C-alpha cells in the first residue's frame, strides 16, 4: 500500500512529541511490550498468522521468535475459531496466550469461542478457573480494505459479560495497556487502529502498566465533553485544537478501556460542561457511541444541557474505493462541524 503508507508516515512526522523522554513509534512501543512480557514470564506466548514473517506482523513482532524461540512465538494455520479455543484452553491450563490478528474482521469467525467460552468459563466454573488471554487486532482503513477488511467491531462485543476491551491511541498507552492486558486474568481484547499505529510518542523504558478501566483527559475545556478512543478521538483532538481559534474548548476524554468503562470520569466532566459528544471508530448504531450516549441520558440526565451527539460510522458497509471512503469516514472537519453545532445549540 505504498500510497497510504506514505501519507500516513508524513502525517505522523508532523505530530510533535511534546513531553520529555524517549520517543518511540507506536509499533516499536508494542514490540517492546511483547518483548518485556516474554522476558518476564515464561508462561506468555505469542501467536498469529505471520508473526514470524521477517517484517513481523505490522512490525509488532519482528524477530521475537529469534529471541524467544518458535515454541513461544509462532505462526499459525488460519483456523481462527479453533485457535481462539486453543488459546482459551491454554489459558485455562496455566499459560498466557497473546493471539494477534491482522484485522478485527477475522474475529467474527471466533465469536463462539470468544463469547460462549473464553468469556464465560470463569463465571460458570464458579471462579475455579480463569482465562488470561489477549486477543489483539488492528482495525483497517483505506487502500481498498473495504467492507471485509476494515470493520471496527468493538461495539458488537461491548455487551459481552466477562470480556475486557481496550483501544489505545498513543504509543505510551499501547505499550502500557498491552502489558496490563497480558497481566490481567481475564480475556482482554485490544483493538488497535492502523492509522494510530503510524504515530510516535514518548514511551518510558521497562515495564509499566496503564490501568484497565481508567480514562484520561487529553484536553481540558469548558464548552463540551468529547469522549471516545483511538483514531477517531485523535481526529477529535485535531478538531478541537483548531476550534480554539474560535474560542471553543472541550474536555477530551480518552477512555482507553471500553470495558470496564470509566463512568466516573465521564460524569465528572459532564457536570462541568453539560454536553457530550461520543466518538468511535465503529458503527454509530448500537455500539460504543450508543452505550455512552444512553449512559449519559440515564445517569447524567440532570447535568445534560443539550442533546447527546455521536460520531461514528453510518449504517452502511465500508466501501472499498478511495473516493467513497472519503465520504464514508468522519474526519476532523466533520467533527468540528458537529462541535460548532453543539456549542451554538443549533
Amino acid at each position: 500500500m505504498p500510497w497510504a503508507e506514505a501519507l500516513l508516515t508524513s502525517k505522523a512526522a508532523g505530530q510533535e512529541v511534546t513531553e520529555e523522554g524517549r520517543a518511540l513509534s507506536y509499533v516499536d512501543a508494542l514490540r517492546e511490550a511483547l518483548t518485556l512480557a516474554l522476558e518476564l514470564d515464561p508462561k506468555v506466548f505469542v501467536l498469529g498468522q505471520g508473526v514470524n514473517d521477517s517484517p513481523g506482523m505490522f512490525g509488532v513482532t519482528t524477530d521475537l521468535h529469534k529471541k524467544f524461540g518458535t515454541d513461544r512465538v509462532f505462526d499459525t494455520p488460519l483456523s481462527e475459531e479453533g485457535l481462539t479455543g486453543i488459546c482459551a484452553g491454554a489459558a485455562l491450563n496455566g499459560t498466557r496466550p497473546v493471539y494477534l490478528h491482522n484485522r478485527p474482521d477475522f474475529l467474527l469467525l471466533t465469536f463462539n469461542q470468544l463469547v460462549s467460552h473464553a468469556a464465560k468459563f470463569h463465571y460458570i466454573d464458579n471462579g475455579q478457573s480463569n482465562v488470561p488471554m489477549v486477543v489483539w487486532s488492528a482495525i483497517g482503513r483505506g487502500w481498498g480494505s473495504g467492507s471485509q477488511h476494515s470493520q471496527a467491531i468493538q461495539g458488537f462485543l461491548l455487551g459481552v459479560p466477562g470480556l475486557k476491551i481496550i483501544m489505545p491511541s498513543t504509543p505510551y498507552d499501547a505499550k502500557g495497556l498491552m502489558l496490563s492486558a497480558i497481566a490481567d486474568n481475564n480475556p482482554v481484547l485490544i483493538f488497535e487502529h492502523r492509522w494510530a499505529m503510524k504515530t510516535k510518542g514518548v514511551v518510558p523504558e521497562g515495564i509499566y502498566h496503564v490501568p484497565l478501566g481508567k480514562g484520561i483527559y487529553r484536553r481540558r475545556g469548558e464548552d463540551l465533553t468529547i469522549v471516545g478512543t483511538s483514531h477517531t478521538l485523535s481526529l477529535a483532538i485535531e478538531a478541537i485544537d483548531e476550534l480554539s481559534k474560535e474560542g471553543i474548548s472541550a474536555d477530551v476524554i480518552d477512555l482507553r478501556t471500553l470495558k470496564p468503562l470509566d463512568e466516573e470520569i465521564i460524569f465528572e466532566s459532564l457536570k462541568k460542561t453539560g454536553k457530550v459528544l461520543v466518538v468511535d471508530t465503529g458503527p454509530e448504531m448500537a455500539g460504543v457511541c450508543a452505550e455512552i450516549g444512553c449512559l449519559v441520558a440515564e445517569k447524567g440526565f440532570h447535568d445534560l444541557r443539550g442533546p447527546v451527539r455521536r460520531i461514528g460510522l453510518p449504517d452502511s458497509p465500508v466501501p472499498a474505493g478511495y473516493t467513497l471512503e472519503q465520504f464514508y469516514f468522519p474526519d476532523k472537519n466533520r467533527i468540528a462541524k458537529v462541535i460548532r453545532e453543539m456549542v451554538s445549540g443549533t
Partner: protein
Amino acid sequence: MIRYPYKDIEFSPAPRPKKKYDPDFLIGLYRSMLRIRMIQEAIESRYHEDQMKSPIHLVIGQEATSVGVCAALRNTDQVYSSHRTQGNYLAKGGSLKAMLSELYCRLNGCAGSRGGSMHLLDKSVGYAGSSAIVAGSVPVTTGAAFSAQLLKKDQVNVVFFGDAATEEGAVWESLNFAALKSLPVIYICENNFYSVCSSLEVRQPGVDIYKKAEAFGLNSCRIDGSQVLHVYEAAREAVERAQSGGGPTFIESVAYRWRGHGGAGDDSASGYRDPEEVKAWQEFCPIEGLYKELVKQKQLDEVRKNSMKEEIQEEIQEAFEHAINSPNPEEKDLSTHVYSD
C-alpha cells in the same frame, strides 16, 4: 428397521493387552460402569419430581467409553467433555455429591449452580470442564494440551464428544493443529449414530469418521465401545503415545444411546429410530458383557455383584440427600466471579 446393526460395524483391530489384567482392575472397571449406570437410573427415576431443574443427557449404554478411557488416565491428566457430561465426570472421579448438588441448583454444586448439568467440573480429579456448545471443548482441550507441552507438564489431555461434533469445522481446525504440533491430546469421538433425533444418514455422507481424522494426520482407530477393555487398550496406547511425544490420537468409540437424547426414558416411539434398534443394541450391554466374562473367569459372582449394588445404592441415596438438603444460592451469589482478579 434396524438402521445401524452391530454386526455391520467394522472395527479396527483390537489393541492387544500389554500384560495380564489384575482381577481388581477388572472388577474396578465393572464397578465403575455399574455405578454410573445406577446413578443415571436414579437420576432418571427422580427426574419427574421436577426438582432437578436442569436438562439431563444420560449415558446409559455408553458407559464403557467413559470408564475404559479414564482407567488409562492419571489424576493429573485432564478430561473435558460436551453436554453429555455425567459418564465422563464420574469415571474421572468427579464428586457425586457435587454433581447432584449442581443438578439440584444448589450453592455447593460443582459449579455453584452456575454451570448446570451441561457444565460440570471437578478440578481436584482432573475433570476440567465441559461445554454445552457441541464441539466447543475440542479446541479448548487442544489448547490445554498445547500449554502442557509448552510448560513441559506430564499431562495427557482428553476430550469426549459425539459424532455430530465432527460436523463442526473447529474440530478439524483443532486436529490439524494437534497433528502439526504433536500435542499430547486424545480425541474420543463417542459415535452413537444420532444427534438428538437426526441419524448420521441425514448429516454425513456415509464416510468413516476416524478415517477423516487419519487423513488429517492423526493416529486413528474405531473401537467397540461396548467392550470396556477394547476402549481401555486403545486409550492406553494413546496415553503412551501422548506421553512419549508421539502426538495426538483419535479414537472413534461406537456404542449406542439407550435413552432419548435428553430427559428420562427412551423416546424411540416418536419414530426417529426403531425401538427394535434399541433392543438389538441392548444385547451388547457393556456392563452385562463384562459381568459374564468375569463370571466365566470366576472373578465375580452374583453375591459380590449384589453387595456391590447395595454399596452403590447407599452412596447414591446419601448423595441425593446431601444435594436435596443443601442450601440454594442467594442474590449476592449472582454477581461474583464475573471477572477474575
